[in-house]
């Protein structure tokens, strides 16, 4: 990763910590939006523009707006303290989790673009999609082809889940109109 990548990674981690630490909910939501935007740019650097666009639109956009709407319906406790007080046992558990993940899982992960990574070491799978997508489906974006054609039934399930989420929200709020 480049210098920009490391800077973004640090920014994202700081934003995530700030989201957890800020006492004021409004500040936490705004920092959370910044975190999502940082993640979106990070995904772009990692050459995953499709994921980046989803993160920017849903993570930074819709989620922030919905959270803002939600706290607008609550009261906002006035406080002078900037940060939440730290719960030591919780910090210990989370810290232990981070240490275990950092020492056991991270060293096992492949570097970005490593030719030994499974995605490259199975060329008969990966290359087959990249080479045959245009011939099979007539579209150039292999991600779209996988989502809409090769795994179309999965995508159908996802679309229905989104539909069900909308219906469930209306049910919980006891509303009968969509807008």
């Amino acid at each position, binding site marked *: 990763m480049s210098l920009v990548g490391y800077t973004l990674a640090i920014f994202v981690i700081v934003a995530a910590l700030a989201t957890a630490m800020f006492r004021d909910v409004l500040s936490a939501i705004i920092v959370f939006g910044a975190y999502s935007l940082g993640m979106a740019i990070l995904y772009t650097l990692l050459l995953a*523009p*499709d994921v980046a*666009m*989803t993160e920017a*639109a*849903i993570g930074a*956009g*819709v989620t922030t*707006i*919905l959270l803002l*709407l*939600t*706290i*607008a*319906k*609550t*009261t*906002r406790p006035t406080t002078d303290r900037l940060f939440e007080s730290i719960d030591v046992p919780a910090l210990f558990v989370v810290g232990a989790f981070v240490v275990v993940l950092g020492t056991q899982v991270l060293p096992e992960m492949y570097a970005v673009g490593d030719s030994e990574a499974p995605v490259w070491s199975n060329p008969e799978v990966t290359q087959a999609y990249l080479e045959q997508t245009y011939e*099979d*489906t*007539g*579209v*150039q*974006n292999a*991600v*779209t*082809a996988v*989502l*809409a*054609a090769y795994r*179309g*039934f999965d*995508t*159908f399930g996802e*679309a*229905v889940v*989104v*539909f069900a*989420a*909308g219906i469930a*929200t*209306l049910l919980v*709020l*006891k*509303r*009968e*109109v*969509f*807008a």
Partner: protein
Amino acid sequence: MGGRYGGEHGDTYTESQVILTAVKIIAPFTLTYGMFMTLHGADTPGGSFQGGAIIGVTVLMLAFAFGIEPTRQWLKNSVIVSMVGGGVAIFIGVGLATIALGGSFLEYRLFFTVLGIPDGTKWGMEAIEVGGIALIVAGVVITLFFATAAGFTPARYRSTPEVETADDEVLSDD
């Protein structure tokens, strides 16, 4: 209801010239970009999920600038219902059409081999992307926004004007 943010209907609208002007300028571009992403997702990064979300967010921006209640009245419920329900129906319809043509669910190439539509696979995918997923996602994003904004105020079509007192009635129904 009523805390520091809360007002009538939970709508905390204050007219701001800056937000109004900014949204008036930006909204046409976000709508165009969302539609571009949806329609062009087959050949460039993006796709109907992202594009549909951006189309939905455009309406959310309008609600932020012009107030939630005026935007809610401008939006017709039937439009959102047909977006969400119609999207699911189109997706199922395309899938069942390929079964009717003698294949399996979403076996697009039958549109070419049986019906003779050139690039049948591509057009089948575009149909579920543009006509299915984009409509569902845009509609559900708008639904989530307006449902959350209304919260427990039971704004049904036949509701009486006394929404302020109705809040407690709904809770005591349980």
